[in-house]
């Protein structure tokens, strides 16, 4: 016996939205970073076509690689409604670890593995404080970042600057034809990460945890383990970024990764992902890392200097965050 008589009224609610809204949804469906990149490329094409030449673009590609990995790290935690402000400290830590005499005496693979483990350990510490003690991610990662910076500066006060192992230098500075190896490493990692998140159950769990933590808790999702895993992975990814950058610089230095945190947050937000948004793949933030690096180089060419860079950085994040907030409000 078919009791359903009001099926017609029920289906009205699911009609597609009017076409005026479709344009808006198209705009918000594509990550802002892609628009920004198109704008920047267009700008160069018109005013400074020399910047679009391959060699310059390859330099930018290499420069963007460490930031790109940091953006991957930040993306993982921001998708879970957390944040990692210790990325700069992890960069410094990997530089320090990879240039110590200890590492110089070990087989070259350890020069890569040890810093990655160190980064993962920092992520684990962050994760434990955040999940077990329910401390605020902002404060915890700010604190661990400060501890890392202080430790590294202290431990390197009396030591002569060391040199980064050759293997890492080759990765950081080397090229495969015209293409920088660092950039390829970045793309490979981003691609794998993107596929993994899309294809693995963990990716679905992360999506849910970021979309509605309350529902995730009530429906039995292992929300604390997801957060912990994200932070550990973020730590390892940040260490990878630090290695790429150290490889390029070639020596131990205390001036490394100072603006990684800001730029990584900018990259994620420009890439279309905000706190509490379950959607957002890898493409947007990856393009954002490249777009930001291109932007900074353009500013340099125009003589903007450190101050111009900072101003643009800050404005970009604020604009992206405000637009994201407005888009989310409209959607709900």
């Amino acid at each position, binding site marked *: 016996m078919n*009791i*359903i*008589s*009001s*099926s017609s*009224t*029920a*289906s009205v*609610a*699911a*009609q*597609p939205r009017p076409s005026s809204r479709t344009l808006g949804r198209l705009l918000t469906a594509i990550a802002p970073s892609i628009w920004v990149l198109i704008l920047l490329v267009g700008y160069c094409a018109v005013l400074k076509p020399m910047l679009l030449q391959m060699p310059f673009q390859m330099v930018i590609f290499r420069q963007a690689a460490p930031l790109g990995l940091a953006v991957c790290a930040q993306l993982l935690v921001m998708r879970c409604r957390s944040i990692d402000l210790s990325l700069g400290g992890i960069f410094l830590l990997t530089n320090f670890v990879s240039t110590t005499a200890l590492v110089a005496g070990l087989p070259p693979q350890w020069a890569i593995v040890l810093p990655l483990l160190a980064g993962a350990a920092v992520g684990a510490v962050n994760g434990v404080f955040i999940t077990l003690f329910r401390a605020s991610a902002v404060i915890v990662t700010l604190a661990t970042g400060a501890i890392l910076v202080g430790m590294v500066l202290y431990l390197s006060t009396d030591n002569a600057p060391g040199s980064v192992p050759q293997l890492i230098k080759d990765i950081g500075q080397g090229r495969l034809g015209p293409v920088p190896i660092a950039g390829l490493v970045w793309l490979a990692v981003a691609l794998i990460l993107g596929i993994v998140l899309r*294809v*693995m*159950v*963990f*990716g*679905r*769990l992360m*999506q*849910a945890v970021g*979309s*509605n933590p*309350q*529902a995730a*808790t*009530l*429906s*039995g*999702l*292992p929300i604390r*383990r*997801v957060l912990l*895993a994200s932070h550990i992975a973020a730590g390892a990814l940040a260490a990878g970024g630090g290695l790429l950058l150290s490889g390029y610089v070639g020596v131990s230095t205390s001036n490394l990764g100072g603006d990684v945190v800001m730029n990584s947050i900018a990259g994620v937000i420009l890439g279309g992902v905000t706190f509490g*948004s*379950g*959607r957002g793949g890898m493409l947007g933030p990856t393009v954002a890392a490249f777009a930001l690096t291109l932007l900074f180089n353009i500013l340099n060419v125009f003589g903007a200097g450190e101050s111009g860079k900072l101003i643009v950085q800050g404005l970009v994040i604020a604009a992206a965050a405000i637009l994201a907030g407005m888009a989310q409000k409209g*959607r*709900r």
Partner: protein
Amino acid sequence: MQTLIAARNISKRYDGVPSLTHVGIEGKAGSIHAVTGENGAGKSTLMKIIAGVVKPSEGELFLNGKAVTFRSPLDALNAGISTVFQEFSLVPNLTVAETMFLGRELRRGPQLDRAAMNAAAEKALAQVGLAIDPRRSVGSLTVAEQQSVEIAKGLTVDAQIFIFDEPTAALNTQEVARLEILLKALRDRGKCIFYISHRMREIFELCDTATVLKDGKLVGSYPTRELNADRLLSLMVGRDLAQLYPPKADSLGETVLEVAQLQVDKQAAPLAFNLRRGEIVALAGLEGQGQREIVRTLAGIQPQGKAQIAIRDLQGRMSRFSAGGGSARSLQHGMAFMPEDRKAEGLYLDLPIHANLTLGIHQRRRPWALARRCSQVVAGLVKDLSIRTSSTSLAVISLSGGNQQKVMLGRWLAVGAKVLLIEEPTRGVDVGAKTEIYNALRAFCAQGGAVLFTSRELPEVIGVADRVLVIKDHTVVAERSAGAITEEDILQAAVGNHAGGGHRS
């Protein structure tokens, strides 16, 4: 008696679903006016409109004969309407005097005049019969004390109209007596008091008028001396049961769920009950009597809730566990939970429909496993539950309430849950979708599952369930097969009314 406030032709719709339709009410000076009806009849909504918390979709309010509009509760308060809701509007980290005067603080120059506020607060608290220091923090007060503070707040404004929403729910006998003395004193001073309640004794002892609402419509306003408890109850219920409900189970299987030692918190008495295979059991009763806590304890998410559970699978194997180990453990054993507030607690609104449906499947597997597309499962669910959408890639938020509810249900059907624990299965769901959901629940039971649900809608309770447990004060006060119980019986048991003649107790 002079009419202090009148509401005419009030209608309110939430997302197109009507909550009040053309309701009118008049409050006269020197009167205690009961506003009653079963859960969900619209009493709170009507009072919230008068209190300025909610704006009506249609209709007007008249204060002392003049039309008024309230933009906020502060507006209403300044106009002389004071409200004491069930969820208090106090700020827990402030002192009593501070929260009473928040928004209209007394000042001496640029400074707060704490002395004056404390004095005024003390005076008002004394009138309410509460002798506490106004400098105490609100968070340290008991529920009853907080309620008295809310009432005292209205006295500091010299309100003419008071609204009380189920004021005696959290009070002991002494406190109730004190409240009644206060209310009568207010009435004798010419105030108008609206009193939302189900408690027959209070309605007939305190109130001179009773307005009855049913399904968002006005049934009528009557002087209480012309009514008695039975007549009032019958006005609140009794409607034509539309052919919404699928046929009940004709034969039930073995016991599939045994609940023992269920305690919602340390003070509650332990409960025990069973569910049989193919059975749908409803927990009915007034708001806040413990139904929600019972379901959430079984789901493992009630803090401090404990229960000993034994659950039997299709092969007849029993597994025992203690609930209270979190939702993951309960889910592992086959108890799936659907919360009342699907938007905030149940669904992932910005994720696509297929993601919401398949999350239950995914979460059972190892995190590093490949997440299969499960498109067949998704298609099957969409068809079986008649989820109306142009594409399963759309975000769940684009669906209507009924379809959203189906998605939440579908997630647990896909996972092979043994027992469904549902709070308000069709809240905010249109009529057509309701039937589809009931059919789906019956199909689930026919395949060997069992359902335990709570509902405010008595017709739904009687129409859908095989057995009804009426809950009052965290205990089961009545248990009957649904075929042998009427809405009035449920309500009688729920309010604890044994005064009506000729009724089974």
